[in-house]
């Protein structure tokens, strides 16, 4: 199963993860 997130954000939004990284519920994905 997969979850796709699609969202609008200010252009200074940045992801704090890398492709292939394992994450758990509540871990940071991105910030402004």
């Amino acid at each position, binding site marked *: 199963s*997969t979850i*796709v997130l699609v969202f*609008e954000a200010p252009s200074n939004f940045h992801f704090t993860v*890398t*492709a292939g990284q394992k994450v758990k*519920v509540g871990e940071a994905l991105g910030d402004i």
Partner: protein
Amino acid sequence: LANAWKHTPTKWYPLPVAVGALLLIVIQYRKRLGEREVYVDEEGHEVVKLKGPWHVHVIGALPLRNLSRVWGYVNSLELPVWLRPVGFKLYGWAFGCNLDELEKDLKEYTSLGDFFYRKLKDGVRPVADVVLVSPADGKILHFGTIKGGRVEQIKGSTYSLEALLGREIPDSSRTQVAFPTREMAEVDDKEFAAINGIEYSLHELLGTNAKGSPTSSGTSTPKPESSEGKTTATKFGERTDASVSQEGSISEVVAHDTSVATQMGVRPTLERRGSSTINQVKPGNGLFFTVIYLAPGDYHRFHSPTAWVVEKRRHFVGDLFSVSPWMAKRLENLFVLNERVALLGRWKYGFFGMVPVGATNVGSIKINFDKELRTNVGSRRGHPLGTYTEAVYSGASSILDGQPLLKAQEMGGFCLG
């Protein structure tokens, strides 16, 4: 032949530069033509078709939905008590489950399906203090920005955002059926709403303070409940309407909204800054995406990635291909072909959407606040790709025009089969 191969002299001639340049132009032209090859319907909308190498077509010919349902049925069978700890430990060892995070004794999980949809102990998933957190345990497959309405599946392969989330349909093509909802709401000082027992910060969800002035970004702490200045309103069993399109494939549920907020005079002071459509991205903003893959051993409930309001859901009946990274690299439009539930709404920066996508082994998607949703039932026949059923959650909270969710609040999950 051997003699000719050995003794025939090779003569080299210089190739005119113009011929070489022409050849390069033709190659580039053919490449670009191939990249832009899309199927469109009579109205010019893209029609998604199965595309990929031969083994993808072989998999596509299998009755995946029936296999998924049989798999779900088998895994719902109750296991003998003596077998449960051994069986679940073996499954956990094979797929890397962390059994220390479980709250229950393994014997209390009656079936593999029950174990698969397990809950975790409280406090084992701390929540980061950032605007966006992971909604699930899994692996980040991909992330980035969305340009030209296309989402990148893998490098060089994209799919249409409109196909993923569905395009708007005119109201004229809908008819009505009944659908009950219930709501309990309290508003405290016009800044905090307690809806069905959970307290939400209105300015966190709407991006404003109660008087409508924009606020800066950042999280807010819920205010302790106070008896002063509190207004309470309750409504039960209110009717909402669902509608089905003339084609019989698209429907909408629309709440009859006798607004609690309007009765209290709250609504005029609240300014909605977000938007539930992707066509209204504000200047200075962009569209972003990320894809998280849940492996068979992962915890399979999902949580809210931020504080937001879900305004509607669109259920797309589709295929149930595996969504493993192996498949994602080979099957174009994988996330558009598969059965999925697009939850659309808004957060304080504008549009927000979350799309749980089913797969062969986990075809069923549950949404805690939507008991009407039924996934992986019936045949895909009669549900052309791109069509969906839609429910609007304005009945969930008339104050917020949708279902409010806190960051990391449990939303639902994936079940076997």
